[in-house]
């Protein structure tokens, strides 16, 4: 080749490579890259057939672009590669005549059938790893010159750079898409979460309110919404102050308050808010969750009420026991009898409590109270007769203790001293909302009755305590045959349950 021709060739090569570079630079996708490359290969290497193949995800070499190849040929040699995907060691292979190689016979025949004799395999690199190759095909034996080889390598590098660029772009797009999807997922999650979520700016104004909270407040336009106006006037200053403090200190806060729901009902919301910081640590505002704790608050309040009520009853009962003890132990009876009497009185008190506890401390039936108080389960000498009457708790306790005193007196001093003695305890209830309850205790026994002490606990319990509790007149008549006690009670109208 003459000197002038060589420079002409060199100049032409440079122009074509320059043109390729320019087209690759302007290409908007891999297809345009392939198209440009195939054209330049033809022009630079003087062939009209060429192809580009890339490893697919499974590492198999696949045709992605070609010129002048039959579909049959492509199908037959698809997957054939001198290199493994990802290898870093790959040199271009230039074959002057396929028949001179050690390739398998079937392959040689197939290549020959396509009218190909000379061919070149040029690896394509991305990040130093083989990702595919381009091929050139010649219909006759081809002695590849140093120029051919240099051109092939230059083209391969240009293609590699272009592919690298597209792969990087695709990776970034995939990452961005993933990020968008992830953001979308979290947005949906926050929006539709079964808790109330909000985000505020650094002044405490709401920027975002999720659907449950918008529904709670009935918010249509977040921008013009002021959450503080929904606070109960009694809580407004305190909650606003606590939130402003948290914003000022950029710290977390847990605040409870009554908020007006869109239907006008106040609900207790517990807000847990945390400061929200940007990527560079700048304070953006607060993020918070509101939980409706109304039911919990009410249950707590109810529990406190029950505990207070229990405390009250326990203390009152202790005070009653104290009074019973004082009155029992100041009698002139021997200590052993005092103790016995005290135990009996405590048992009567406890039995009345049992009956009331069984009815949730609402009421107790007079018949039950009487049966327990006169030892009715073991001693059949006391006959009970009367209609069903419900006694209020304190009426039941006082009646039980008074009847216990009557029974004990009858056993010690009255008709029941004798095994053949008996007692009738009868009651009647008058008509009306505040009926008169009449009770009559009448003893019948063969032995003379001993009148008990006027100042004893039994007398106090029957005459004063029972009289006061039942708003009753008490008439005690000590007949020779036994005591007759008549109680005429004008029961107060039942007070509504607290």
């Amino acid at each position, binding site marked *: 080749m003459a000197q002038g021709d060589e420079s002409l060739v060199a100049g032409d090569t440079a122009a074509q490579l320059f043109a390729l570079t320019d087209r690759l630079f302007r290409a908007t996708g891999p297809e345009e890259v392939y198209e440009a490359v195939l054209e330049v290969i033809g022009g630079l290497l003087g062939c009209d057939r060429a192809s580009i193949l890339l490893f697919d995800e499974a590492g198999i070499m696949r045709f992605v672009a070609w010129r002048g190849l039959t579909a049959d040929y492509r199908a037959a040699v698809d997957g054939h590669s001198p290199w493994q995907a990802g290898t870093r060691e790959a040199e271009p292979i230039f074959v002057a005549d396929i028949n001179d190689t050690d390739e398998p016979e079937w392959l040689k025949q197939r290549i020959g059938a396509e009218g190909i004799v000379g061919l070149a395999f040029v690896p394509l690199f991305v990040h130093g790893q083989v990702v595919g190759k381009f091929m050139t095909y010649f219909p006759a034996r081809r002695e590849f010159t140093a120029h051919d080889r240099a051109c092939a390598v230059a083209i391969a590098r240009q293609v590699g750079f272009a592919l690298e660029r597209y792969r990087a772009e695709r990776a970034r797009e995939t990452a961005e898409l993933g990020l968008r999807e992830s953001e979308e997922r979290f947005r949906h999650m926050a929006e539709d979460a079964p808790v109330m979520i909000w985000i505020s700016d650094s002044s405490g104004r709401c920027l975002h309110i999720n659907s449950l909270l918008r529904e709670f407040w009935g918010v249509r336009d977040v921008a013009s919404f002021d959450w503080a106006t929904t606070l109960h006037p009694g809580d407004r200053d305190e909650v606003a102050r606590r939130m402003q403090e948290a914003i000022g200190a950029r710290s977390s806060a847990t605040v409870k308050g009554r908020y007006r729901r869109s239907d006008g009902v106040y609900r207790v919301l517990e807000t847990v808010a945390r400061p929200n910081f940007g990527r560079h640590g700048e304070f953006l505002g607060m993020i918070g969750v509101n939980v409706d704790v109304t039911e919990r608050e009410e249950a707590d309040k109810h529990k406190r009420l029950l505990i207070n009520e229990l405390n009250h009853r326990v203390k009152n009962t202790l005070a009653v026991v104290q009074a019973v003890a004082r009155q029992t132990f100041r009698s002139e009876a021997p200590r052993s009898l005092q103790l016995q009497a005290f135990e009996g009185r405590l048992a009567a008190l406890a039995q009345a409590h049992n009956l009331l506890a069984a009815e949730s401390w609402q009421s107790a039936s007079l018949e039950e109270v009487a049966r327990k108080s006169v030892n009715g389960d073991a001693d059949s000498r006391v006959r009970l007769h009367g209609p069903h009457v419900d006694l209020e708790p304190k009426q039941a306790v006082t009646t039980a203790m008074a009847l216990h005193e009557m029974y004990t007196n009858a056993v010690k001093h009255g008709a029941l001293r004798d095994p053949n003695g008996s007692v009738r305890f009868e009651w009647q209830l008058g008509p009306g909302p505040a009926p008169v309850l009449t009770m009559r205790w009448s003893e019948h026994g063969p032995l003379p009755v001993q009148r008990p002490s006027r100042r004893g606990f039994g007398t106090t319990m029957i005459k004063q305590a029972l009289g006061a509790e039942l708003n009753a007149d008490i008439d005690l008549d000590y007949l020779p045959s036994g005591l007759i006690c008549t109680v005429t009670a004008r029961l*107060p109208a039942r007070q509504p349950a607290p």
Partner: protein
Amino acid sequence: MTGTTSGVPAMRVLILEDEVLLALEAAETLEEIGAVVIGPAYRIDTAMALLDAERPDAALLDVNINGATSAKVAQRLRDENIPFVLATGYANQSGISGEAAIIDKPYDRAQLQAAFLRLGAAATPGLPTSPARPA
């Protein structure tokens, strides 16, 4: 004249206590130091009716009366400048204020007597307290 430390001469004391036995005990306890008991009232409306009928010098109020509080009675006593002592089974959560003293249940007789002896000692001649018996 003020009361003496040995007694509360004829101090008239309204008792409101729904537990009959305790009311009777309290009455007896206050009578021991010379007080005259009004009531005892076992219900709030009874106590209000007794206040309509006469003006006591002092009162003993149980806080919890049949599940309600005796706040209404306390308010009336405060309005009429009648000192009162609260008896309660638990820390005073009733919202009642203005009491002269609080005694915890169960209390002993000496505590109760001491509270009213202090009231008697604090009474001033200007108040419509019954005059002391001649010494």
